[in-house]
């Protein structure tokens, strides 16, 4: 029967889709596990001992190479883990060089393509989302640096975050989830400003590198 045949054909297409989704689910699960492990290592930055080891980064690199998914229409399914990985890359790069990672660097670190035609890629929204997550981690780092007796790091973080904030303010964000996350940046900026204030009023703030009080 004609209608029946038509629906059978569509059902075939839907089943194939389901299989792809299933595969993605497994890959994403693995990536999430890796991301969790890297984060655990990175958390040590909040301890007095600090962060030294950048070996976990390599593991993302290796793992993501095995990704050969070329279907951007399942983007929703790996969007979350990509943002997570972008955050981790941005955080590692900041800790190493106190610079903002570029989108190109993130894709190189994660071993993925920027060009969407070539498959798995990093959307600008996902990159920015990762950067915003890092900003919130930095506000926490500013607090913990003071506890660990490092009074210059908060000032450097403050400058970095202010630059980031004015950069974001130039963007005409339409994308709703990103916009919401950006609103969170205000709180991070404010928190860091308060840390710098606490240091200033107690005469503990020093220009990073230069020395001396204001």
């Amino acid at each position, binding site marked *: 029967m004609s209608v029946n045949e*038509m629906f059978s054909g*569509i059902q075939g297409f839907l089943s194939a889709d389901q299989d792809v989704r299933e595969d993605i689910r497994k890959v994403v699960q693995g990536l999430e596990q890796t991301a969790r492990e890297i984060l655990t290592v990175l958390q040590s930055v909040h301890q007095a001992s600090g962060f030294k080891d950048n070996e976990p980064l390599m593991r993302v690199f290796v793992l993501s190479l095995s990704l050969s998914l070329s279907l951007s229409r399942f*983007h929703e399914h790996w969007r979350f883990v990509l943002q997570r990985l972008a955050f981790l890359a941005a955080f590692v790069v900041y800790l190493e060089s106190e610079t903002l990672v570029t989108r190109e660097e993130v894709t190189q670190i994660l071993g993925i393509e920027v060009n*969407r035609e070539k498959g798995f890629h990093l*959307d*600008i929204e996902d990159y920015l989302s990762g950067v915003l997550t890092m900003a919130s981690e930095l506000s926490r780092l500013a607090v913990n640096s003071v506890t660990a007796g490092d009074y210059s790091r908060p000032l450097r973080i403050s400058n970095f975050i202010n630059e980031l904030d004015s950069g974001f303010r130039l*963007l*005409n964000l339409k994308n709703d989830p990103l916009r919401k996350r950006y609103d969170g940046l205000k709180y991070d900026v404010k928190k860091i400003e308060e840390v710098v204030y606490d240091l200033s009023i107690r005469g503990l703030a020093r220009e990073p590198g230069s020395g001396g009080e204001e």
Partner: protein
Amino acid sequence: MSKKEAFQQELDTKHDKYERLVKLSRDITIESKRTIFLLHRVTSVPDVEEVLAESEDKLDGVKLKIKLIALELIGEDLYQYHRAFTPGIQEYVEAVSFQHFIKERSLISLEQINKDLIFIEDKKNEEPEGLSSDSQDEKDKPVCFQVTPTDYLLGVADLTGELMRLCISSVGNGDIDTPFELSQFLRQVYDGFSYIGNTGPYEVSKKLYTLKQSLGKVEDACYALKVRGSEIPKHMLADVFSTRAALVESDEGIS
């Protein structure tokens, strides 16, 4: 700074394209809905062909808009912008399959819909403004738009609502064959959707309930026709209705 500007440009380009697609989708939705409204007139006008011809014109206009979407998507990731135009495309599927049913009394296939959305680029000045034709060999290739199976399913699911309305109007206008054909047809569509069940996206499963309700209404209408038809032989029934139709016709001048 220049990096940020590049971001801004990328975001703006994306956003502007998205907005243009949303706008096109809205236009497609409105025109498709108008086509459907127009097609419902087949139950009340004497010249069905005229209505069909008019609907053809309207749908040709819609296709031109879909071509604009296709042009916007050249070299782009379809699925990144899919959310922008899916409502319009679903409504188009609804309209075109409604027209097809009225003409052919059958379900238009996804292949057929997609075949009608292959556009041969014959005039250069048809290109929408703001679109740079950066690659020259694209002019030779036909521009085409591919309706996804899911959009097809969702459009067809909504079609059943229109068919239910058509059925009820038919009964109201004394057409006693259409309801039975419709119940047969809707049952097939319903069985098809039941077969797909929850393997499709959530939106499809969600429509199952409405679809069942539409089918129920059509089945009830057939039942009513059968039951009231049981009081008088069918050929006489037809007579009664033609008298009735004439009566309505002649009345129209009075009020």
